[in-house]
């Protein structure tokens, strides 16, 4: 299935970007910023953390990873279906993108957007 190859490749790319994102979040902030791992939204979240809530950012990041694992799992499963349910794939990716946007996970967000482009192109071809 030629047109599905893009989608499979993109999921692999997305998975990689998620691993990279883990690394990026643990870098010193200025480096993560310069390397394009985080955007303004992550800075906003950091500013919401204070002495009363010293683990806020860590907690949000943890929620994000749990959600991410679930999204990737769902997408993997959906990619095994024949024919592909593009609406479902698009929906999962939309949620994943929203999650990454809320946390400022810039690289993951970019990969999600790309997946949705392939998805919509695939839908047209289909």
């Amino acid at each position, binding site marked *: 299935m030629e047109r599905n190859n893009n989608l499979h490749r993109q999921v692999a790319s997305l998975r990689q970007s998620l691993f990279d994102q883990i690394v990026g979040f*643990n870098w010193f*902030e200025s480096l*993560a910023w310069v390397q394009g791992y985080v955007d303004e939204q992550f800075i*906003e979240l950091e500013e919401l953390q204070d002495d009363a809530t010293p683990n806020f950012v860590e907690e949000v990041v943890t*929620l994000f990873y749990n959600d991410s694992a679930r999204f990737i799992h769902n997408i993997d499963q959906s990619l095994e279906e024949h024919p592909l349910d593009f609406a479902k794939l698009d929906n999962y990716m939309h*949620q994943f993108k929203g*999650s990454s*946007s809320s946390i400022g996970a810039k690289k993951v967000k970019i990969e999600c957007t790309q997946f949705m482009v392939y998805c919509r192109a695939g839908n047209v071809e289909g």
Partner: protein
Amino acid sequence: MEMAQELHVLAVDDSHVDRKVIERLLKISCCKVTAVESGTRALQYLGLDGEKSSMGIDGLKVNLILTDYSMPGMTGYELLKKIKESSVLSKIPVVIMSSEKILPRIDRCLEEGAEEFLLKPVKLSDVKRLRDFILRGEGDDNKETEKNIKQVCSRKRKFLDDSTTQSMLSAVVTVHDIESSSPESSASSESQQPLSKQSKIG
């Protein structure tokens, strides 16, 4: 009628991450928060299935409903409609949030009675603006409460700054206490320049 000390906001969003962030934004803005994961849960909380009040099941009056648009089951738009159709709940302001800026969608929500449409990711400035708007809307007799809430909020912030200043000063005075001074606390005011901040994430 007695006005609660803080605004009580009902936040509705199916995303764990967004619920957590919104909750924090609201708490920092001195609001009480009840966060639920769906429109159905929101209606249950509001007692729309039977109760004749705008109290949440824990008896707290809800001053604002902040809901995501795209949710499985019941969308934020459908929730908005149900609230506006209810004689009991229609007075509660409803604000819709969405990651997509789709103009017909925005128009439809505003036409149905939404106070505002916020683009995600929601920022602290958005929440503060909402809070001020709701406080004004709660009536003139509550101007005193509005002033009190703002004073309490700013008082909390000042206290934090003073204690941070204190720890910085004592770090300077006791030269051999370099270990105990935290780089994070001294960067609290440098929020506009991420490149100069050296705090480690996590």
